[in-house]
């Protein structure tokens, strides 16, 4: 088991996966700039604490929870002052009206299902990887994704009707 992560490895991860980190963090924070800040802060923390990394999992699996945590903290800052209604996230990347139904449907998903959904579709993670980030079993990830798919399908069908 190696100790610590190299700057080169962290930089490589940043450069190859930045867009996926950014999209996931933006979705969690409900704001692209907040997502950008979250990814930035997560990688600053990763660089600072790189000596604490242990290679039991991948470097990416070590960084993801930092990104998620920072994005969730940013969500606090972006939602609270606006209207205090935490059940209705505010999507500032909303200049595309055709996305409104899916946006509204996603906003109504339970928090954990939303996280799993974002990690899957914006982060591009496999079930095992999501399970590591979220701290559940892969089977739970599959079940939550299934529930999210069902919910979204029903909601979108309602909209189409």
């Amino acid at each position, binding site marked *: 088991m190696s100790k610590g992560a190299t700057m080169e490895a962290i930089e490589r991860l940043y450069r190859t996966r*930045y867009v996926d980190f950014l999209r996931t963090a933006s*979705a969690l924070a409900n704001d692209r700039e907040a997502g950008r800040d979250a990814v930035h802060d997560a990688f600053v923390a990763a*660089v600072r604490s790189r000596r604490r990394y242990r290679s039991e999992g991948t470097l990416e699996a070590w960084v993801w929870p930092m990104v998620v945590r920072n994005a969730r903290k940013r969500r*606090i*800052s972006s939602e609270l002052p*606006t209207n205090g209604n*935490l059940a209705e996230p505010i999507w500032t990347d909303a200049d595309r009206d055709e*996305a409104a139904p899916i*946006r509204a449907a996603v906003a109504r998903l339970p928090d954990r299902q939303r996280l799993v959904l974002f990690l899957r579709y914006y982060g591009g993670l496999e079930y095992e990887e999501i399970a590591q980030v979220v701290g559940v079993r892969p089977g739970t990830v599959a079940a939550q994704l299934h529930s999210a798919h069902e919910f979204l399908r029903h909601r979108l069908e309602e909209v189409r009707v």
Partner: protein
Amino acid sequence: MTEENATIALLLDEVIPRRLDDGDWRRVVKDAAAPRRTRGRRRPYPLQWRLGLAMTVVAVAIIAPLSALAVANDWWFLGAPSAPAPAGDIVVLESGSWNNVPWVLTAYRSQTGGVCVSFTPNPPDGRTTDASSGHTAAMGCTADLPGLSPSPGAHTHAIGFIGSSSLPSVPSPFPDFVAGPTADNVASVKVELASGKQLEIDTFAAPRSLGLSLRFYVAAVPSGDTVRAIVATDHDGNVLDQLAVPQPPSTSQTNGSTTPNSSTGGVEWGG
């Protein structure tokens, strides 16, 4: 990927389109190398956020070293000068012992229509056998929870908190703590710590004698860590409310070994 999943992927792409973006690795390296306390934010928090922070602290803690506490009618907090008077019994919600020091979590309905929550080591008077030990009591009151009598125009929250935050320079055998009331539908509370770790605490119902449909939580904070945020969730994991916890000033100290970690946005105190 199934057709359905592909459809969802396409729809989600519309919500947050995949755009070319390289980030700013040089800035990451620069900020990581900068001293933590002097590192400037790239984007200052907007005024809205700072106001929001003050507004969301629904319970104000009064914290003092036990050696300085006045004791009245057994419970120390009844002697606190600006504490709202009880409208019912002082109810023991939970009790325990950390590092061989007993503690209790109590609450009462206030005459101003709120709830007051107190954490007391060495109950009931909070006196300690060793004044330098740093054992600390705390109390907070709020009316901004469902079922209470919120101030006009106040936003109702699903959670409130009190807590303590020791200064690293004054080691204490008794851990810091976080506790508070929640709305009736809060099943668990996630406490996000500065270290990045997270505590998940199940809430418990108040005894009927309290006369309020609230739930409560209490937990010790791991040594050397501080609370950054508190998240209330329901049985399905849905986030009901979130509070950012103001960090204690690093240079000040309140009468000894601790500083309050929530000191703004009073709801009932000071009236």
